[in-house]
């Protein structure tokens, strides 16, 4: 079947199999930043934005995204770097395998969350797992980035 997707601001047409996921599509056009880890759609590593909202690309059917706008970190590098500098200052970029997906969720959180208290932030990001950092440095960096650090 044929679908249309806008990927990182570029309109594209794909001829897909019904079982193909957004992740498969992104790999087919050599997007490296999107990584898979859990094979079950729960770790948050493969997160991309669909119309500005985070989705797990590894388990999101491409057909369902038809007509939508997919954003990966390649398209928001400038903003990612802005946040990234705080992350890096905190030492919170560790193995970084999970980081691109996490950063995209933070971008979405910035636009969609109303209260930036610790609990709301942690709740919004709960689906983005990290095994290295212990999450504390993430929170410190996010609060500095959002200008809500104590």
């Amino acid at each position, binding site marked *: 079947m044929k679908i249309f997707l806008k990927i990182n601001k570029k309109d594209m047409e794909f001829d897909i199999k019904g079982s193909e996921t957004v992740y498969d599509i992104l790999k087919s056009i050599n997007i490296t930043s999107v990584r898979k880890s859990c*094979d079950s759609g729960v770790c948050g590593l493969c997160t991309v934005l669909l119309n500005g909202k985070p989705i797990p690309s590894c388990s999101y059917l491409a057909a369902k995204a038809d007509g939508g706008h997919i954003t990966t970190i*390649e398209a928001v590098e400038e903003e990612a770097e802005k946040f990234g500098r705080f*992350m890096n200052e905190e030492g919170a970029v560790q193995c970084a395998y999970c980081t691109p997906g996490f950063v995209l969720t933070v971008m979405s959180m910035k636009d969609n969350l109303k209260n930036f208290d610790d609990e709301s932030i942690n709740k919004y990001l709960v689906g983005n797992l990290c*095994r290295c950092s*212990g999450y504390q440095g993430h929170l410190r960096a996010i609060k500095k980035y959002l200008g809500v650090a104590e």
Partner: protein
Amino acid sequence: MKEVKKSIPKIDGIGLLKGRPAYTMDFAAKDSLVIKILRSPHAFARIKNIDTKKAEYLPNVKCVLTYKNVPRNIVTRAGQGYPEPSPHDKFILDEYVRYIGDEVAVVAAEDEETALKALKLIEVEYEVLEPVLDFEKAEGHKSIIHPEKECHEMFPIGFNPTKNIAAEYNMHYGDVDEVLKGCEYVVKKTYYTHAQAHVTMEPHCSYSYMDIHGRINIISSTQTPYHVRRIVAEALGIPIEKIRVVKPRIGGGYGGKQALHGEFYTALITSITGRPSKLEYTRQEVFESSYTRHPMKIDVTMGADKEGNIKAIDMHILSNTGAYAEHALTVFMVAGSKTLPLYNKAEAVRFGGKVVYTNHTPAGAYRGYGAIQGNFALESTVDELSKMCNMDPVDFRAKNMIREKETSPIFRIMGEGTEGVDMIVESCKLDYCLDRAKEICGYEYKKKNNKSSDKVRGIGCAIAMQGSGIPAIDMGSALIKLNDQGFFNLLVGATDIGTGSDTILAQIAAEGIGVGVDKIIVYSSDTDLTPFDCGAYASSTTYVSGNAVRKAALKMRDMIIEEGAKQLGCSAMDIEFDGNMIKTKDGKEITLKELSTNLFYSKNQKQLISCESFCGEVSPPPFLTAFAEVEVDTKTGKVDLVDYTVVVDCGTPINPALARVQVEGGIVQGIGMTLFEDVKYAENGKLLNSSFLTYRIPTRMDIGKINVEFAESYDPTGPYGAKSVGEIGIDTPPAAIANAIYNAVGVRITKLPIKAEDILKALKEKEK
């Protein structure tokens, strides 16, 4: 100190954050053969017949391997120095399969779909054998897990495969039984620790290709590229010079990638077919067929005199290494060697036990190995003994724990698989750590919290130590090269697995030479191009590799001064070098930029290179004090961690921000292990929770508040005073949380993970 003790951003941080190609699979050629592994459905079986014809008939299948057509060389995959303290008990493929998930056959195909299809077409007839699934019944079981005649130990480690014993060790000093008899107070407890999964976000993966010289190049997600080179050569029976191993960026290791996993298969497929090949484990394979932490049963007896002085400690351990004995002896020994010296005033100490094979997923290296198990048992017992002595558990620790400039006979007696080295602890701020952590967390107030409501808070303490590399064994080296216009290449074998070691080694190099860190370009972990390093394990990189870098940097500084003197026509004694300008007292000067460019193109032409190695004579322990505050729901037994406070003595933190995150990350893995992470097996030996849905790791909602501080400390043997910091964070959560639960509700949990139902059961029993 200008460049160290400074939180500079990680040098690769922004590139990684932006998702640039950096990891093993990012480098795999598009035309790579895809490797898939057929795995055993039986916990213990012998392959009677295996027919691969139908699979091989598939047009896009290039190669099918079984035990019949691969080299039969027995090795250990442990990824340790040579000779290894782990027995050689693993073939590339074998006719015996020893756990559910063990390798039966290997398929290489043009695409994943074909490889998976081929797996289904392989016909295997098994002789199913009775598995050994209870590690307390493994010794002398009628099923012998390693009946193969080739398996052997590299030096005496108590290996006795006919009894399913992978290793055995016993030591003592003083007469423990006699001293215990004279003790006023004696506590005897048995503890169980469980298997924990590493859960690296990047699955284990390996990619191989053959270069123009016919050499196999392996790009691998490994912590030990040099050991991989040696062990792959040994297993495949090919000359070591035919292999190059490169470690790119790694998506998490925590010990799980110290060992070899897919490298044998990609290397062999590439050597047979001449084609690039890649293998990436599925998440299920990562859980079932890589490693777990060693489960242990630990018996501790500890005695004290009337005044509350610990007089004797007796620790006996039975450890379960699963189907293969990677790190069997060493993990088990560390349970004693990285805990018992904490209470160095004991007159008599005995430590010993056995490590047994079972038909479970193999156990292997995992951050804090042995230490976390031993710490849970020892530090829980210390709390119990303090209560018996009628002393506050924190005061009891302060009275008995090791102090600066002291030693312990354990250092000399116990190494990792061999004898240890004698050592005076030159830096130990444990006393400061204890006082400071107590103050931050409000211990004196919180220990007396109201204990009468349904939700009861409690606070508990544990102290810990680690080492800094394996003394007299672990070696690291560094090479520094001066380039024109005055910048440097730092080449290290050290293996940055996400920890930031490339960054802190650049800081050490910059400090030593006297230049800014922006002048140091780091290249690491390539067996052809970088000098040797044992790899990222045993808390070694900052101390061992860092010392090598410091030596090489100081030598480079001397070389710059010497060459500067020649160009300025004076003696090196008269030269000052401030990192930019080389000048004499009488006003002659040349910049480093000019000097280095002259050295390449116009005057006294030569390449300046310094290369130095370091192998520690001692292994200075970092120390840590932890306080956990919990809230226990007495109606349900549920435990919430409210606050976790640690103060760490890691000597000089080379990069405090990175050191802090190492500690925080370790703590959270330790919390996961304590409260819910639990590798479970079905009755037939199948690992039950092999996905993120069934094996839960901590999320950011699970962990409460974590406070980390560092003590001012300086170890004279460390690079600019540094000791290690990678593992120590993980050691205390089991004991500190168990002690906090005791403080809250008065029940002692001796089995990990600490489950609500166990607390509830203990509370009910207490009521009786």
